């Protein structure tokens, strides 16, 4: 395997992932529309994947466990988005809204 030398410390990748993750948290906490909440969740999943791939590339490049993990994260994200959108469509059809704060029957 050919090595590409670069001078970026591992911490910078982890910091980028931390920033993306907290932006995703902000989106999940503030957005009212379920589809936009889902987009923020995607941001958080991507932040986790960056962590995995960065650790794999710096710590154990001969095993690429992190890359395999990221592939599975993407697979599960695809399944999750499909299911979540089906549920959102069903909620919209029954309630006429996709805003999560208006679907609060279980809240007392």
């Amino acid at each position, binding site marked *: 395997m050919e090595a590409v030398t670069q001078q970026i410390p591992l911490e910078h990748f982890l910091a980028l992932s931390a920033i993306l993750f907290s932006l995703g948290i902000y989106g999940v906490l503030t957005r009212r529309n379920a589809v936009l909440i889902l987009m923020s969740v995607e941001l958080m999943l*991507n932040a986790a994947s960056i962590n995995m791939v960065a650790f794999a590339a710096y710590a154990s490049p001969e095993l690429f466990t992190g890359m395999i993990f990221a592939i599975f994260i993407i697979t599960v994200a695809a399944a999750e988005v499909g299911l979540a959108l089906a549920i959102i469509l069903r909620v919209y059809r029954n309630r006429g809204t996709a805003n999560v704060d208006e679907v609060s029957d279980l809240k007392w």
Partner: protein
Amino acid sequence: MTVAQIIFYLIAALAVGGALGVVLARNAVYAALFLILALLAVAGVYILLGSEFLALVQVLIYAGAITVLLLFALMLTRTTDVAESMTGAQWPLAVVVSMLLGGLLIVTVTTSDWPGDADGTITRILFEDLGAALFTQWAVPFEIASLVLFVALVGAIVIAREEEGE
């Protein structure tokens, strides 16, 4: 500064800008387009980390399929672009929480001792090595992933389809 560093900071700025657009955009469709920008930037990060396959998968599945699905959902639920309906009233608290979490994560990341980051070389992952690992060492999780996708597909159809008399 080396070329790799310049490219990394450019890509990181694009990713953070795209993520800011996703959480702050007034128009839901713009948020989805910003999400594409952020996901493509993350694909660039994967290339910098030496795994082209992951970058390809990211562009095809995330930036391609998943965002198109999200745009379809926006269209089918007729999400309006009225500015005030997009964000909840608790946003100042959310700013505090996410900044605290982000600050904590960054402090932890920069003060910790990570193993194996001494030489700063990235090994390029070849497609055939990744494929061989996926089909030998990780064959069982791979098959389970196909089952997960199948069940999610069937579940999505069952949940979303119109029933008789509805």
